């Protein structure tokens, strides 16, 4: 069991707090929970509460999962209960028992996939598989800003560093808006920043280079989407002293490709790396144009070779990861989500009978959300303003559709399927 470092700090809006203090404050909320059998899914609450819940799971070695409020849809609530987890809603304190409690597996941490390629799935990790920084010796003291959504693999990468490596600090912004995050980073002197390329593109427009250079960055980590040379070069130019790392990771396979040479892709020689022991480092193969991985960081319930589903291309002495070819993901200012999550929320509105949500190309943020909808005949009339405000109460603001088209009937193809997105 890896030991939680209670004196590492978390910079919140209200000031710095030791992890131990956060845990002590959280303890009364979980009185009695640990004595019950089976995994616990902590859902809802704010960023601080998610960190508290994760720290509590780490310290008690309890079987569990954490999930932010915006992901706690009715469908996901059902998935969690069917998996045998008790669902603890951190917002209202409500505890829902599963119909059949699952057996407790100490140290198991489950992550829920985004569901962008189907129904969200529970991926089982342990603190050991999540803690990929374990092999890094003498990591310098760093103050990390995590821009990732709570409960995701990338979020746990930062969190395990704060939890288990001495002299690491986490800075948490009040909002996931990139501008708010950068302002928090400037205020707290963040020295290590992990984000997507889109996050940086957004920030590079919003802030003057001289302002950004006030960030005393020693470590810049890029991940979560395709990394191109242009963004690597821009960041290297802006922060020449910082170590620039880009990581390819997935919830199932873990962090598998970690590149520090400032170049897009990874060296082709890594494909031919004849490492026999997968506990040492990940092995990489290309099969039918797709990247396959055998990794010591992979999920407990995903043993063996994993097909990442991501396309790769070899050019010269580098391998370039192109990502999934088919997409139903919307990316608003670096915040990615499945169109389906918005559609499911809208379909619960009493006046909406059908909807199709998509990304519409927009200046500055890449995409904004658009929605075609068909209203239920005879239902109370609604306007786009009504539906926007309905959504705003249920999903994060970047997911709320801004462009609406009300159709008279549901569009269908000849084989009675909804027309392609």
């Amino acid at each position: 069991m890896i030991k939680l470092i209670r004196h590492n700090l978390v910079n919140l809006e209200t000031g710095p707090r030791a992890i131990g203090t956060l845990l002590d404050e959280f303890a009364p909320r979980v009185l009695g929970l640990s004595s019950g059998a089976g995994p616990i899914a902590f859902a809802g609450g704010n960023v601080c509460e998610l960190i508290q819940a994760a720290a509590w799971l780490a310290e008690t070695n309890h079987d569990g999962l954490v999930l932010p409020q915006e992901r706690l849809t009715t469908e996901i609530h059902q998935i969690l209960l069917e998996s045998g987890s008790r669902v603890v809603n951190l917002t209202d304190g409500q505890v829902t028992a599963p119909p059949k409690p699952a057996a407790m597996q100490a140290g198991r941490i489950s992550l829920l996939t985004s569901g962008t390629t189907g129904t969200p799935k529970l991926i089982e990790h342990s603190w050991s598989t999540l803690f990929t920084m374990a092999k890094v010796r003498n990591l310098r003291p760093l103050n990390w800003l995590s821009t990732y959504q709570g409960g995701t693999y990338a979020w746990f990468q930062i969190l395990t560093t704060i939890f288990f490596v001495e002299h690491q600090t986490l800075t948490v912004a009040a909002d996931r808006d990139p501008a708010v995050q950068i302002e928090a980073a400037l205020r707290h002197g963040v020295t290590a920043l992990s984000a997507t390329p889109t996050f940086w593109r957004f920030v590079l427009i919003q802030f003057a280079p001289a302002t950004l250079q006030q960030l005393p960055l020693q470590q810049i980590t890029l991940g979560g989407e395709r990394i191109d040379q242009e963004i690597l070069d821009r960041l290297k130019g802006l922060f020449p002293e910082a170590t620039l790392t880009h990581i390819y990771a997935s919830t199932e396979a873990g962090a598998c490709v970690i590149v520090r040479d400032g170049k897009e892709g990874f060296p082709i020689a890594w494909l031919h790396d004849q490492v026999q022991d997968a506990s040492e480092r990940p092995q990489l193969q290309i099969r039918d144009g797709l990247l396959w991985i055998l990794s010591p960081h992979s999920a407990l319930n995903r043993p063996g070779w994993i097909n990442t589903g991501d396309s790769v291309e070899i050019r010269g002495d580098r391998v370039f990861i192109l990502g999934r070819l088919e997409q139903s993901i919307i990316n608003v200012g670096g915040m990615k989500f499945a169109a389906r999550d918005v559609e499911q929320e809208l379909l619960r509105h009493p006046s909406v009978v059908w909807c199709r949500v998509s990304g519409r190309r927009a200046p500055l943020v890449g995409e904004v959300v658009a929605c075609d909808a068909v209203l239920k005949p005879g239902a109370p009339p609604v306007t786009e303003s009504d539906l926007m405000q309905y959504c705003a109460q249920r999903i994060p603001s970047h997911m709320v559709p801004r462009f609406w088209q009300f159709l008279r009937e549901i569009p269908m193809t000849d084989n009675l399927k909804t027309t392609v997105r």
Partner: protein
Amino acid sequence: MIDRTTILDLMRGILQRQGKPNDYGEDALLSDIGFRSLDFSELALRVETACGKPLSFGAAPLRAIRTVRDVVDFMERASGDQTDPPQSR
């Protein structure tokens, strides 16, 4: 080029649809009226649609935007001939 009244109407519509107050003057600060970066992107897309061509953005003028007037000036220029100098009012 798209005129100021149209830009102001589009801007009011964006805030109104979100249930935010839309009775403000051109001197109002964007932070005070709750006009955020996503709203700015939406406005830019609506202006693009209205004038039928993509807007061209410079990072430096964008960073200087603080008030409703700044937004309208910016959109007015961006939707006009890019080689034109900024217009005086």
